């Protein structure tokens, strides 16, 4: 701190202030409301001694571990295959597998129920099996089919930027490819892997939508289900109880993040200023077989659920599978609703503005953390990750308490405005841009920065002219991670939305649960959302190309 300029100090101060307002203040306020203003020992004891609490805690941890392990098993070799081999189709597969991140998990769950419910699941009937989707295995598979992209994207990015000279040296010294992977590659990508692993673990602990649709009918009770149940008791004490339990979840999150920090202690530089061509492993005869395996995987993860939704969207009457039953009526009804276009407009405004703000803040905060060293890094890391691992409904309540009325004594009038939803999305998704960009900062060889400093460059020049181009791919990757889930976010929005503030997520939920007269309108909306996401995905790819060309 001694050697830095005043302007740099101001940047650090503003960053800390923003982190406090976004990531600490809502929790302090919520804690104050639950444990100080409305302190009720009886309720606290009731929540933590309930037999359902122990059951929910065990189930949540078990599910999170299973999903994280399955995702690791699928995503790690996949990332390696798509970045470290000469598979001719690897660029196409990279894009296609990333696409599955784009489907809102809630929609995927609806499709999987149609496919694999034990009574008349389409897939069960075709294959002559009786797989029960309403089980911990079903829940693990469905959640993994979405969350594996967290590790995949992280690893593909890291492996793609990794300096290949270490591997080449090991190969030249006679190591086998497998030996190189475990002795050289994996230690280098360990931090990225752990980031993805813990991100999945925390996401599963905090997830509600998919566990609700698949877990509740299967009697699988999770911590988020218990929090939801308390909220839906319909009384004020129910809301307090959900708040109390949410603090229990924060504690678990804290422990998990501490474990992650401990495991990530040692980091290696992945990128140096010198370019290094990757020495790709040559696949010859096995290429067609690998392509077939990848196609089957992609078909199960992506094509099958979409086809199911498409059939439902085109069906006049649900559950009848014939061409005669096909109609466009569901689409017509969807567009006869006033809210449909409004929800698309609102969601696009929300997701684009939130993405831009998060990218900006994530970049600045990562820089600030990097310059302050490791001691501050752990704290900031924890604070920013807290909202992401908080269940959406609880976070929404904390945000309503904190920003819905008076903020530090001033009534901003944010309640029932798009502003409050934007703030809540920023709080929730900031972690993606911060984490991805921060990882990239630590993987850049510091010698470039030192050279710039020795040449007399000021901090803002270093930030814009050196750091920004070096971490730009990571920033772009996080844009994708923020924009798409924000486009169809549901759990927080359902509590924050108000008249005229419908979003794609809330409209989908309303249609699915309450107002879908024809039974296929929710699926029709889902298909349009998926099409929109595909178009946006292509735009992201084009943007990526432009950035790469700029580099050349």
């Amino acid at each position, binding site marked *: 701190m001694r050697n830095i300029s005043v302007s740099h100090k101001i940047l650090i101060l503003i960053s800390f202030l923003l982190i406090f307002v976004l990531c600490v203040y809502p929790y302090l306020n919520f804690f104050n409301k639950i444990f100080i203003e409305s302190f009720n020992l009886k309720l606290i004891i009731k929540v933590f001694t309930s*037999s359902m609490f122990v059951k929910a805690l065990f189930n949540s941890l078990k599910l999170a571990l299973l999903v994280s392990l399955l995702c690791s098993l699928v995503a790690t070799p996949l990332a390696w295959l798509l970045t470290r081999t000469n598979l001719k189709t690897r660029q196409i597969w990279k894009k296609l597998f990333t696409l599955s991140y784009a489907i809102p998990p809630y929609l995927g769950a609806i499709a999987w129920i149609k496919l694999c419910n034990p009574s*008349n699941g389409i897939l069960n009937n075709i294959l002559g099996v009786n797989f029960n989707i309403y089980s911990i295995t079903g829940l693990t598979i469905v959640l993994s089919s979405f969350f594996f992209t967290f590790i995949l994207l992280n690893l593909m990015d890291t492996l793609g930027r990794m300096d290949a000279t270490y591997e080449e040296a090991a190969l030249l010294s006679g190591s086998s490819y497998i030996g190189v992977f475990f002795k050289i590659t994996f230690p280098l990508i360990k931090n990225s892997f752990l980031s993805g692993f813990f991100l999945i673990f925390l996401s599963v602990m905090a997830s509600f939508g998919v566990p609700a649709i698949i877990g509740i009918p299967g009697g699988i009770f999770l911590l988020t289900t218990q929090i939801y149940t308390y909220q839906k008791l*319909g009384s004020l004490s129910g809301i307090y109880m959900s708040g109390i339990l949410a603090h229990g979840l924060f504690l678990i999150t804290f422990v998990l993040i501490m474990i992650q920090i401990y495991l990530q202690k040692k980091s290696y530089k992945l990128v140096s200023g010198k370019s290094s061509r990757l020495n790709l492993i040559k696949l010859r005869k096995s290429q067609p077989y690998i392509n077939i395996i990848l196609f089957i995987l992609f078909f199960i993860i992506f094509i099958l659920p979409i086809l199911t939704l498409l059939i439902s969207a085109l069906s006049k009457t649900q*559950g009848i599978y014939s061409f005669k039953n096909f109609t466009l009526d569901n689409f017509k009804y969807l567009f006869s609703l006033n809210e449909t276009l409004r929800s698309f407009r609102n969601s696009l405004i929300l997701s684009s503005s939130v993405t831009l703000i998060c990218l900006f803040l994530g970049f600045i905060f990562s820089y600030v953390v990097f310059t302050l060293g490791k001691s501050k890094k752990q704290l900031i890391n924890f604070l920013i990750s807290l909202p992401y691992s908080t269940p959406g409904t609880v976070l929404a309540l904390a945000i309503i308490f904190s920003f819905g009325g008076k903020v530090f004594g001033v009534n901003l*009038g944010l309640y029932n405005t798009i*502003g409050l939803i934007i703030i809540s999305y920023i709080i929730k998704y900031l972690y993606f841009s911060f984490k991805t960009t921060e990882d990239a900062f630590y993987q850049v060889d510091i010698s470039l920065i030192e050279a710039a400093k020795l040449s007399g460059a000021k901090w803002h020049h270093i930030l814009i002219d050196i750091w920004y181009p070096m971490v730009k791919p990571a920033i772009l990757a996080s844009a994708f991670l923020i924009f798409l889930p924000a486009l169809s976010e549901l759990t927080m929005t359902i509590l924050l939305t108000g008249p005229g503030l419908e979003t794609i997520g809330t409209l989908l939920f309303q249609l699915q649960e309450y107002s879908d007269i*024809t039974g296929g309108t929710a699926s029709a909306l889902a298909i349009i959302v998926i099409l929109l996401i595909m178009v946006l995905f292509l735009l992201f790819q084009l943007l990526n190309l432009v950035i790469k060309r700029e580099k050349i």
Partner: protein
Amino acid sequence: MKIFSKLLILIIIVSCSKSNKNEFWIYTSLYKDTIKDLSPILHKKFPNITFKWYQAGSEDISTKVNAEILTDNIKANLLMSADRFWYHELGNLEKLLPYKSSYATKVPKEYIDLNFNYINVSFPIMVMAYNSELTKSPPKSFKDLAKQKWKNKITSGSPLSSGTNFTTMAMLQNSYGWDYIKKLKSNNIISQGGNSSVIRRLQNGQRAVGWVLLENLLRIVKKDKRIKIIYPEDGVIMQTNIMAIPKQSSNIELSKKIYDWFFSDQAQKIIVKSHMYPIFNHIKGPIPEKPLKYFLDNSFAWDKFTVEKISNSRMEIKEKYTEIMFK
């Protein structure tokens, strides 16, 4: 940087734009098509007022309003949803405006709060339904659903997300005890979501039989001949579409006017159009051969003791239900 600063300014402007004083906010669980019919008529009747609707399931509305109460930030000028017991609790907490409308005397006394905190404006009716392709001998009553014959074949909405399903579960528990609910659980009932999701499970064959609102069924039975209505022998469960004015409504006088308007023939006919039964006998219901009286005579009994009992143990009922369903 310029883009970011412009965007931030835009957000601040949008976020902090003052709300229009002529806005009137109705939080309701009425269906979208009913709101679509009501909006232009309300607009014609009250031309200077901009009507804003927050449409969600009854239990989502109660969660939202409870959160608004805690932040002292109630926006709704009129509440209209199905969970009568929640309104009863709000009334006891003095969060609702006692209003003795001139229509209050015309509404049957079982359907109006003794302190005039809330009133029933129409009747959704919980009946049963089945998919005729999946069963030829459907159950005849709610009680039948507890028989082992219906294992893996029953569905309902969730009492945690749907007010009408909470009322149904509470009334069934009140009449048949917790053993009945335990038997439903051992029959692997899928009890999730709102009434639309029940219809969907019947249509796609996931479940053969379930309980669901008559208004949902009347929307679908003409198009999907497989789905049949059952009027349970042990009685239908009369639901209530409750209306109340929050004490903190920003425009109490207007709230009262619109509250009264919902009892006009014009409003009641729109409610009938959405397949609910009107509160008054002189307006025909959605099934001419089955007048309101038929359902009132063949339904689980509502009385002030039932309301009081269920209202007072609302939380315990939901907790016990959760415990049974997830054990």
